[in-house]
């Protein structure tokens, strides 16, 4: 057992703190797919600037902090670029049709006891676990 669960808990608290700042400050649900998706499909309208600022912080802070706190961290993303593209399309379409992802439905939805958030989270975890089961243990692709 290594210390990864401690870092997980610590990182999780920071994620939740970010969500709390966004909610209590701007009155908005912190959902990564909604914030980006609203910019992509033009539904964000007047909130474009604050959404862009959120994304600048989300991309910029790891850029600045990684050399200091986690220089060895890697994404270990598969080198199969076809899988990457298919996964990206599924994540983009799915999160926008379902109106939320791990942060919006997961973190922010569960914490307000939203039935939709809880059901969405159960479904995407089940779909993810079945995908890993099928492609790793049955087909041996990932």
């Amino acid at each position, binding site marked *: 057992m290594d210390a990864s*669960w401690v870092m*997980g808990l610590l*990182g999780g608290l*920071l*994620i*939740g*703190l*970010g*969500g*709390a700042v966004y*909610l*209590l*400050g701007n*009155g908005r649900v912190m959902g*990564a*797919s909604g914030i980006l*998706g609203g910019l*992509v*499909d033009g539904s964000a309208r007047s909130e474009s*600037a*604050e959404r862009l*600022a*959120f994304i600048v*912080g*989300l*991309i*910029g802070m*790891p*850029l600045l902090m990684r050399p200091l706190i986690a220089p060895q*961290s890697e994404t*270990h*993303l598969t080198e199969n*670029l076809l*899988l990457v*593209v298919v*996964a990206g*399309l599924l*994540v*983009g379409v*799915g*999160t*926008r*049709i*379902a*109106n939320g992802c*791990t942060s919006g439905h997961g*973190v922010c939805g*569960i*914490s*307000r006891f*939203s039935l*939709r958030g809880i*059901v969405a989270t159960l479904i*995407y*975890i089940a779909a*993810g*676990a079945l*995908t*890993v089961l099928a492609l790793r243990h049955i087909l041996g692709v*990932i």
Partner: protein
Amino acid sequence: MRILIALIAGALFGTGLLVSGMTDTTKVQGWLDLFGAWDPTLAFVMGGAILPMLIAWRMTNRRQPIAGGQFPSPPRPELDRRLIIGSALFGMGWGLVGLCPGPAMASLSYGGLGGLLFILAMITGMFIAPGLGAQLDRAANPT
């Protein structure tokens, strides 16, 4: 004010994703791998993130957002096919490579070509999603 708050929230979110190891796809796929070498880290991240949010939602009862405006309306109760089908599609993509929207953006600076490609594909998916969602509604209610 709203822009500064959003920048701080995004920075906290990104730092949390980096610190927790959630930008490492092997940890995410390891958590989803219930039938292999299961990695429990994601459960601690989720639990840790929900704690401050529980308090924050409680605080929305008796105040206004600092930057003005209104808090989000109460969650809708109904479960529709958009929620169910969309979440299933998202879960498949999530399991396939171990990335969801937050970590994909947070790791842009060190995710290499594959990470960039994922984001471009995800943005493409987000662009076509409203059309696909409308087709889903038409399939549900043929006129």
